């Protein structure tokens, strides 16, 4: 039978629980990383150990007769629960939660949710999740420190779990600010050749909203929440989903959209916004009308080439060689003056270069970012990202007003190649009339978009 203590423990277990082969032990991993590192923050680490022993330990002992201990490594705290785990396993199995491996990987919380009969029980369950996988690291903010965030960080591919959790949060008025789904259309919108797209789910809630409607049982978490909120000048509240603004920007078609790791309702789809997933998953809070409105300009939103792919020139050459559509192109080599490109950008930020009609061509904004990557010194890059592309270009042309970059322009509107300095960039064209023909709606879900690869014929027919 559910109760308020079990609700908390279930949240904790679903957030971080792992069952191994041993019958008499299971563990809960708390991925506290730098925030909870005993090397970086020994005082907080001491508090975490106190939280485990004064909050979690007595609750496990009273509820399931299990004895709690813990281990702390640099990035992960592990709660170890010893004893006869059969009562706990029976409870989990009754809720349809498999006791095998990482619990959240396959957990379906719909049965648990039906037993969380009031807001208090829901809050207790969510407190367990927030104590285990709720991150309040310094990076958890929206643009500036003014909007502090609690991010529930969930590994795996369990979209239904994230959707159910989001609904549960809604039901107590703890409206999420954003959901970063574990999908290539969220984690790599610009580059289809970027393969490490699976960075996990992030269910982000404004900390003010969480402080008002949610809960923590760990003192360390409550303290962090207060500290982070004190960085804000104002109190912020979240808008209900249908009232939230939707800013849809172009994203490229990524081969991992068909990855077998993705669940069937999601696999094979292309998603134009994080809230597009909500519509495909059938959430009652999804902005269905707004999504359908965006479908009228899919040619501008769905790009079958990299919007921008930055790498070493050898890697870029290898990408071209391995893609017949790109490899078969005739490329004209050009040397372009960087000052003139900047001038063009300053007179029209939305200009399209080398197009066959006024509606297609390579966006000057993307071209300039690529140029900045090519000409940047090492200390002007964050990995492969230029730190302020306009500033980099201005600095370099100030030193050398005749500065040029090498461009290879293909005979059809496949990606433009910009190269130099051992680096290369592919820049995809805008070509809405051609691209819109690549997108269809899934027959059994009108909100799910399916795409097909672009062909030479598609591009030639557009001429």
């Amino acid at each position, binding site marked *: *039978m559910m109760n*308020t203590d079990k609700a908390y423990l279930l949240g904790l277990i679903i957030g971080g629980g792992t069952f191994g082969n041993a019958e008499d032990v299971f563990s809960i991993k708390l991925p506290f990383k730098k925030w909870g590192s005993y090397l970086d923050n020994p005082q907080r680490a001491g508090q975490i150990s106190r939280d485990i022993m004064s909050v979690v330990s*007595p609750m496990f002992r*009273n*509820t399931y007769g299990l004895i709690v201990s813990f281990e702390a490594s640099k990035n992960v705290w592990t709660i170890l629960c010893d004893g006869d785990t059969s009562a706990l396993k029976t409870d989990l199995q009754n809720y349809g939660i498999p006791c095998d491996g990482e619990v959240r990987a396959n957990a379906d919380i719909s049965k648990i949710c039906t037993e969380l009969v009031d807001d*208090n*029980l829901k809050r207790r369950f969510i407190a367990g999740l927030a104590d285990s996988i709720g991150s309040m690291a310094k990076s958890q903010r929206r643009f500036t420190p003014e909007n502090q965030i609690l991010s529930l960080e969930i590994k795996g591919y369990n979209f239904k779990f994230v959707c159910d959790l989001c609904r549960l949060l809604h039901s107590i008025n703890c409206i999420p600010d954003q959901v970063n789904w574990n999908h290539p259309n969220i984690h790599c919108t610009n580059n289809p050749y970027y393969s490490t797209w699976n960075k996990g789910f992030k269910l982000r809630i404004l900390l003010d909203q969480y402080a008002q409607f949610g809960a923590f049982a760990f*003192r360390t978490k*409550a303290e962090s929440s207060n500290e982070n909120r004190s960085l804000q000048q104002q109190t912020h509240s979240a808008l209900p989903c249908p009232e939230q603004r939707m800013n849809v920007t172009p994203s490229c078609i990524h081969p991992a959209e068909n990855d077998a790791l993705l669940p069937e309702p999601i696999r094979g789809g292309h998603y134009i916004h994080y809230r597009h997933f909500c519509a495909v998953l059938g959430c009652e809070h999804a902005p269905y009308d707004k999504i359908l409105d965006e479908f009228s300009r899919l040619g501008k939103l769905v790009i079958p080439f990299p919007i921008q792919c930055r790498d070493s020139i050898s890697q870029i050459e290898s990408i071209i060689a391995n893609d017949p559509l790109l490899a078969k192109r005739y490329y004209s080599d050009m040397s372009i003056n960087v000052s003139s490109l900047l001038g063009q950008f300053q007179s029209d930020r939305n200009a399209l270069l080398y197009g066959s009609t006024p509606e297609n061509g390579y966006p000057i904004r993307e071209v300039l970012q690529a140029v900045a990557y090519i000409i940047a010194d090492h200390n002007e890059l964050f990995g492969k990202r230029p730190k302020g592309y306009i500033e980099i270009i201005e600095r370099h042309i100030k030193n050398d007003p005749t500065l040029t970059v090498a461009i290879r322009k293909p005979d059809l509107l496949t990606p433009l190649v910009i190269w130099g300095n051992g680096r290369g960039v592919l820049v995809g064209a805008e070509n809405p009339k051609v691209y819109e023909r690549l997108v269809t709606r899934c027959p059994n879900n009108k909100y799910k978009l399916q795409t097909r690869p672009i062909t030479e014929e598609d591009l030639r027919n557009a001429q």
Partner: protein
Amino acid sequence: MRNEVSYYPEIQRFIESQLTSNFKVASKRDLYVFWGIGELKTNLQRIIAEHPEECACASDFSRYVPPLSLDIFALVTDRQKFELLILEIKLVKSAGLSEWSQLVGYCLVSGAKYGLLLNIDSGSSPRLTQMIQTEQHMSHIQTIVNGETREHILGFMQWNSLTHNFEYSNLGTIKSLSDLSDRLVTEFTHK
């Protein structure tokens, strides 16, 4: 600097939420929790007058209960049956035998079945800890009054004023609020 009385509302809210939630899950019925601060008899009669439908079952009890000054108590009822829960709330470095004795005394005099000693942001003294752990009868007391057997079941918990949450000490017979809820469910659903 806050005094202990300033913590009453948050503690009341928390206990009430946990008891009513757990009762609702277990018995699919509502549980009512009415609070009184200060003198028991007068407050009990006021609660009954204000909520006659829910609290009529406690009318007889309120007539013969002696006047008694308490920190805070709750009349817990499902309309058919009722129980008294007495809270002894302390804001001390460590709660000891004298605080426990106070709670025991209040429960014995009032006839309340359930009692909780709550210390705010601190635990219990080593001596009290040892005594409650080894002497079970100190938290599960049975008396015979006018030939009638009475039971008094007690526990000790720590209130965390930052998280607004209890940290269970495992001291006493009432181990947790879920445990207290289970006892109420059993009692109120069995004739």
